[in-house]
């Protein structure tokens, strides 16, 4: 396993399979009364979150603790960062403390790469700017594989603000690596011009894509984008690209509905749709812990610094 996890492009299909297979075992640990194993006892995992994110941070924290590692949470608010400390100085401090792994979420694309220059531990990208969010993609791949028993040959539609979505980029790369087919759907203003290089097709017409989609993955749309005129009104966006009850009826029978959260009920996904059994949003959360445990175990369970 690679020392760092910065981008889905760093993982081969064998790597992904190994991560997902190992996550199965960690999911079983989550069903025990004592949801803990001593595998990473004595190791220190630092959560370095420059952006607010309750769910991802808690997911990593639980994952590390269930592996018996020590967890240090570092959030930007009320910290040395607020006093103006640079990423580099923070990194050097963590290095001096002996962090075995650093999980970093940052508003600037590429921050995790910079971090690898200053620390000797493993770096995990928990979301950098609009670039990538590989652990989210892996947990989504896990959820999809669990439902369908495979990833190869599946057709996935990713719908919404693809241009600004690091989740979309990571997931598209991951799906391509595992032999699945992705169609990116959204208004032309929110689809990246470079989409063909991601290995995906694009479409502006959601109603044409839905009948052929095994998985319908809805992205969150920020209403801020309306202010910047990426679309005229939230109402029109919901009309053209929102997953309504009527649209759900167009999906094939076994199709799965996913959303990385948090949801804008009523905008990209109708409120009653979010509660349908096809919508596996809660399972995504449970699987997230297992996948992150798998990553930490595989990355730290081998020899320390090679």
């Amino acid at each position, binding site marked *: 396993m690679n020392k760092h996890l910065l981008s889905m492009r760093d993982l081969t299909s064998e790597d992904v399979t190994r991560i997902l297979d190992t996550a199965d075992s960690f999911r079983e640990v989550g069903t025990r009364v004592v949801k803990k194993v001593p595998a990473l006892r004595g190791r220190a995992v630092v959560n370095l979150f420059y952006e607010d994110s309750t769910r991802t941070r808690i997911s990593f924290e639980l994952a590390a603790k269930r592996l018996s590692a020590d967890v240090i949470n570092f959030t930007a608010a009320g910290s040395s960062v607020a006093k103006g400390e640079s990423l580099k100085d923070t990194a050097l401090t963590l290095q001096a403390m002996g962090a075995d792994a650093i999980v970093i979420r940052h508003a600037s694309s590429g921050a995790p790469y910079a971090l690898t220059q200053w620390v000797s531990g493993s770096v995990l990208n928990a979301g950098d700017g609009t670039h990538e969010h590989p652990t989210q993609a892996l947990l989504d791949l896990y959820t999809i594989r669990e439902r369908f028993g495979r990833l190869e040959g599946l057709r996935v539609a990713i719908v919404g603000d693809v241009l600004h979505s690091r989740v979309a980029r990571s997931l598209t790369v991951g799906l391509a690596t595992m032999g699945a087919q992705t169609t990116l759907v959204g208004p*032309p203003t929110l689809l990246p011009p470079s989409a063909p290089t991601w290995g995906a097709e694009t479409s502006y017409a959601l109603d044409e894509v839905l009948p052929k989609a095994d998985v319908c993955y809805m992205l969150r749309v920020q209403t801020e984008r309306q202010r910047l005129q990426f679309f005229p009104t939230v109402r029109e966006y919901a009309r053209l690209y929102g997953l309504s009850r009527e649209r759900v009826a167009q999906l094939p029978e076994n199709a799965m509905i996913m959303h990385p959260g948090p949801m804008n009920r009523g905008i990209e996904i109708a409120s009653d749709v979010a509660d349908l059994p096809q919508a596996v949003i809660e399972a995504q959360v449970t699987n997230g812990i297992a996948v992150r445990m798998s990553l930490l175990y595989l990355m730290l369970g081998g020899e320390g610094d090679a």
Partner: protein
Amino acid sequence: MPERTIFRGVRLVDPAAGRDEHADVVVVDGVIESVDPAGKGSGTGEIVEGDGLVLAPGFVDLHCHLREPGWEDRETVETGSRAAAAGGFTAVAAMANTDPVADNAAVIQEVLTLAEKAGLCDVSPVGAITIGLAGEVLTEMGEMASLGVRMFSDDGHCVPRSRVLRMALEYARAFDVIIAEHCEDTSLSEGTHVHEGPTSEARRLGDTPPRPRRSSSRATSLWRASPEAACTCATSRPRGPLSWFAGPRARACG
């Protein structure tokens, strides 16, 4: 019982087909059945003596103002349609600078309904690019397109902010519509009446610098930035494609 009409001895002018000839034209149930050289047309039916009058495909005006809703004292959909039909125009595109502005589905629907009621020619309402033609916020083009709107323009005004026009061009790609930009930089044209030249210099029409020729360069460069968008520069005489107009109730006028 099929309705048969024979236009005898007309001058058939069809530029698209390269035809300009004297002919007998037979129309059955609203569809042209045959075109024969003059005097050779056969069969029964109502006969319309052509007398060398021109018979042509209906003309299309891609840029007109029907002024309804809001300025019914100047023009209405009905009076405008009547004038169009009288001149051989079977289809017109009506610009959005009405009051209220045609920047939403409700006004578009109103114009469509008025045109249907008048029943004289096809009216294709043009939707505004920005709300109130103010050049700031995009209109719900998707919803208007679903009513059949095929062209959007803030005509009367240009869209002054390049960013807004660019977003409009990109967004419109999803709907197979045309964005028609009124190419006039008001910072240059304000207070002027004619283009620069010896006449305007001599007569100094208007207190301020004379009106320049079409300032199309900005729109052209935007077009290059977004090549798949369809953008046409429209001032008072359009030069857009005619082929996208397919009116189901187009009537032939002699």
